[in-house]
């Protein structure tokens, strides 16, 4: 079982990192587009806690939490999103492409639904090599409208691949209610492929971790793909700066009721964890994020010469 304190800490790291990104974006220190997962931290932290170093994750445009929960270092993460040469991707990818291949994090992705077939390929690689590794494809409820999702689950099912598809169901498909975009219910859709679908409260990180552990163990036993639907909430807009004219302000104002971090803190407190331990975890997360941002601020900007020679592998001498 995942350690509830470790889950709490990971959610704090993601929350602190993303709230810092929101500030940096507003101040012009983060260019481009960023999509925050504030409110959804329980899914990333819970699922990734069930994985080992040999496993693979393909993520989405809302992928900061997945990268950090997979162990991507805050320094390389912030330097990347802040467009510095010390970014793990050299400042060539940015927020939508944070990736840490050494840790089996196959990238956030700018294309909705595109991570799923990549995770399928990673699952295929685990199977072909004969390891017990598994692959996870995170996706949102809006992505179910993409054809690649269907192709992926179909192939995973006929080949019984170790693929865990995790739906972060926040009710939104970019700027639209997902129930106005997708006719299928995820459970019925999944079951029509003969694949097991489990629903979990995505704002209960311990429940997410338990569901993921159970599914991953089944995948490692070769029982074929699984789908977990984690109901959660997107606190912020589709992207930072999104005026959210499509959204009922009253609904947006109720987000804190679903806060996975407040819930985890209350549960830990009820189980007797001293407040000081929890306060320390919070200040440590804040300090780690602040240190990573400070380092990124002094790092050199992304390097054009390195980018120019980075399209293909260097020619062999």
């Amino acid at each position, binding site marked *: 079982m995942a350690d509830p304190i470790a889950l709490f800490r990971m959610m704090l790291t993601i929350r602190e990192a993303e709230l810092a990104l929101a500030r940096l974006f507003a101040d012009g220190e983060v260019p481009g587009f960023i999509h925050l997962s504030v409110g959804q931290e329980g899914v990333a932290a819970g699922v990734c806690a069930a994985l080992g170093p040999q496993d693979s994750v393909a993520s989405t445009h809302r992928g900061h939490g997945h990268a950090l929960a997979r162990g991507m270092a805050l320094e390389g993460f912030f330097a990347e999103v802040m467009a510095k040469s010390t970014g793990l991707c050299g400042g060539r990818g940015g927020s939508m492409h944070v990736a840490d291949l050494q840790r089996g994090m196959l990238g956030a992705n700018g294309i909705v639904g595109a991570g799923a077939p990549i995770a399928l390929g990673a699952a295929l690689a685990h199977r072909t090599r004969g390891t017990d590794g598994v692959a996870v494809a995170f996706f949102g409820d809006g992505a179910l409208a993409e054809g690649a999702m269907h192709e992926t689950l179909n192939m995973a099912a*006929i080949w019984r691949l170790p693929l865990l598809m995790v739906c972060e169901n926040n009710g939104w498909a970019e700027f639209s209610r997902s129930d106005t975009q997708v006719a299928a219910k995820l459970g019925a859709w999944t079951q029509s492929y003969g694949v097991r679908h489990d629903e979990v409260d995505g704002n209960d990180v311990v429940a997410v971790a338990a569901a993921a552990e159970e599914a991953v163990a089944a995948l490692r036993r070769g029982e074929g793909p699984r789908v977990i639907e984690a109901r959660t909430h997107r606190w912020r807009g589709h992207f930072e700066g999104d005026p959210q004219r499509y959204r009922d302000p009253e609904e947006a104002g109720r987000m804190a009721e679903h806060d996975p971090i407040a819930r985890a803190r209350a549960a830990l407190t009820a189980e007797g964890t001293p407040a000081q331990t929890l306060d320390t975890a919070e200040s440590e997360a804040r300090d780690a994020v602040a240190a990573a941002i400070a380092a990124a601020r002094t790092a050199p900007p992304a390097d054009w010469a390195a980018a120019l020679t980075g399209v293909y592998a260097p020619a062999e001498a």
Partner: protein
Amino acid sequence: MAELRMVQAVNRALAEAMAEDPSVFLLGEDIGAAGGPFGATRGLLDKFGPDRVRDTPISEAGIVGAAVGAALSGLKPVAEIMFMDFITLAMDALVNQAAKARFMFGGQRGVPMVLRTPHGGGLSAGPQHSQCLEAWLCHIPGLKVVCPATPADAHALLRAAIADPDPVVFIENKALYAMKGEVEEAPAPVPIGRARIARPGRDATVVAYGAAVHWATEAAATLEGEGIEAEVLDLRSLQPWDEAAVLESLSRTHRLVIAQEAVEAFGVGAEIAARMAEIGFDELDGPILRVGAPFTPVPFAKELESAYRPDAARIAAAVRRTLE
């Protein structure tokens, strides 16, 4: 030395690469039990088993997406797309994922995959089974594009493509699948990006690739009877293409024709013409001419398709014009 059809040369390259490297595996529609629609993978299922010769559903986006994921995970997938026309369905995986991963992940890892696919007409296969779409792919930084014209090159370049650390689109001209040619037992490697002089000549250079190499060679034979010696340069690789070899030939002949089966407008020939106008302008004693297909879809009826496709006569006429 063995005489092989081009499709057999492809088969042999696949079998050799799979025998040498256990991380090489194949995936595609009907490549296993059926041996591939053109027989390129015949016999490989029996030799290597279903995990390494994987029959897929009719899911081009999934096939190429899975190849990207497997390549990022350390395997060397060789995916087959049954007809190049179907590559439209896989463009996200190829263009947004495979081509960009090395660059956008800061060089953490490349995508060592090959996508094999047949292009070209001449089979009355109609508008959706005959296209030559290679220019699209040459336009994408991060992809390599190869198109052999002989069995020996098909074998050697497929070995090079599988060994390459970056994604390579390997285009097989389906009208050439049955063409026979010598393939040595242990041939010298052919690097991607190197052209070959298919026929030497001193009066004009004809740059071609795929089926057009053979039309150009036929045109050169015709022109020889008129006292014109045309040099035929087989590009073999389209991205990267052998700019130095084209310039070198042009510097000897001072006339340039570029022939391709694909639609002429915005094609591979347009890029070569533009580059040679930039870097070879002083060598030119005549206009650079292109020979390619007209700006229409590939038609079905034999009469229409033969009017559509470029041929030796059109190439010969272009060479004569450059010499006017």
